[in-house]
């Protein structure tokens, strides 16, 4: 399973690589990282990097996670990637906007990795 993680905090990459080290080692999951909404769109634009699941932060400079979600849902219809939003701002407004834009899930920070792992395994 290819997972694209979008977050402006670069250490998120180290964290994911450590927390999912077994899954990565066993080739159960494959992660790619983008540090902005714009980078994520560039990555998705290249078909060889087709991700089936996108985990995106909301609050990022430049293109926000919600804008990225809108772009993905509008432009990448076939096959439609799953998009999970991960944010420190888990308020109703963000949640409702994300759901309206077609988010497949909404998780809040600090991220419960065990919960995320369960969710990812369920998708897998």
């Amino acid at each position, binding site marked *: 399973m290819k997972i694209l993680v979008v977050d402006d*905090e670069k250490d998120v990459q180290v964290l994911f690589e*450590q927390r999912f*080290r077994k899954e990565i080692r066993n080739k159960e999951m494959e992660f790619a990282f983008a540090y902005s909404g714009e980078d994520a769109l560039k990555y998705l634009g290249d078909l060889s990097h087709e991700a089936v699941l996108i985990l995106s932060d909301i609050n990022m*400079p*430049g293109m926000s996670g919600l804008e990225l979600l809108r772009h993905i849902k509008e432009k990448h219809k076939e096959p439609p990637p799953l998009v999970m939003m991960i944010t*420190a701002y888990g308020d109703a*407004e*963000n949640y409702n906007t994300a759901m309206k834009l077609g988010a497949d899930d909404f998780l809040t920070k*600090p991220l419960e990795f065990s919960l995320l792992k369960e969710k990812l395994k369920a998708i897998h």
Partner: protein
Amino acid sequence: MSPQLQTISDFIKTSSGISDAEKESLFKLIKEVDKNQTMIQFKLERIEKDRNTLSIMLQESIEDLQKKSLVIEDANKALTQTLEELKATQVQLIQSEKMASLGELTAGIAHEIQNPLNFVNNFSEVSNELIDEMTEQLEKGNAEEAKAIANEVKMSLEKINLHGKRADGIVKSMLQHSRASTGKKEPTDINVLADEYLRLAYHGLRAKDKSFNAAIKTDYDENIGLVKIISQDIGRVILNLITNAFYAVMEKKKLQPTGYEPTVTVSTKKIDNKIIVEVKDNGTGIPQKAIDKIFQPFFTTKPTGQGTGLGLSLSYDIVTKGHGGEIKVETKEGESTGFSVILPV
């Protein structure tokens, strides 16, 4: 005639040794003396009268002056009190400006502390897992694998330390921002200072207004090194310029919702013996009629309640009086604004 002259005159009249002609001549002389004496007496009386009048007038003047002096003294007291009140108000205003900007930052601060805290929690959890795994590998006798895991633990611990320090730095700068300035110039990494306030301002605004977003560009001159500044004060200047820049791009976005990319650029550079901090935005620009007033206290183009009108005025004082530097502005109405803070090193 005076009694003395009368005595002399009577003596002459009865004296037999003086001829009538001589008597006549002496009487004439006595009359003249008498006349002169009367004149002198008259003059003396007039001088005396004048002196009295003058004395009265002087007395009146002195009393008048004393009254005036009392009035001036009262006025002086009132002025001193007003001055003290003004000074106290100024201190209060500076404090409310600081607190207002701190209020603006609160959400940004929360976000900026939450992020490193999340890392601290997540990396410490992962370290625990890694240590369990390492023990497992050691029990199996896989020393190489255990070593590899130990390196992972080390990396996790470094991240915990890094993010702990990051949160610590934010709390310290927040406390510094709310405290009165120490007025002490200390070696400061101006790039770190600018970036910290950029992130706080950005996340603060994002938390307040979810529709807000702007591209942030930074270009820090890594060769600057440490600069001796009053970091609290210069931090406040940078924060003020960044907040204004974000405000200008937000305003423009409202007028031009499509096809406009709000962008704020923060850069630093060292040229000769000067450090230049630039904050640029592609926002609304400053109207020509306002440009001369922007550094005046209480001047604001923001709606009531949104700006104290003290930000740029305080910034100007901090840069010029506090650091012997300059603050320059270049603007094009409707297009862009760039503020440069030039500090001598």
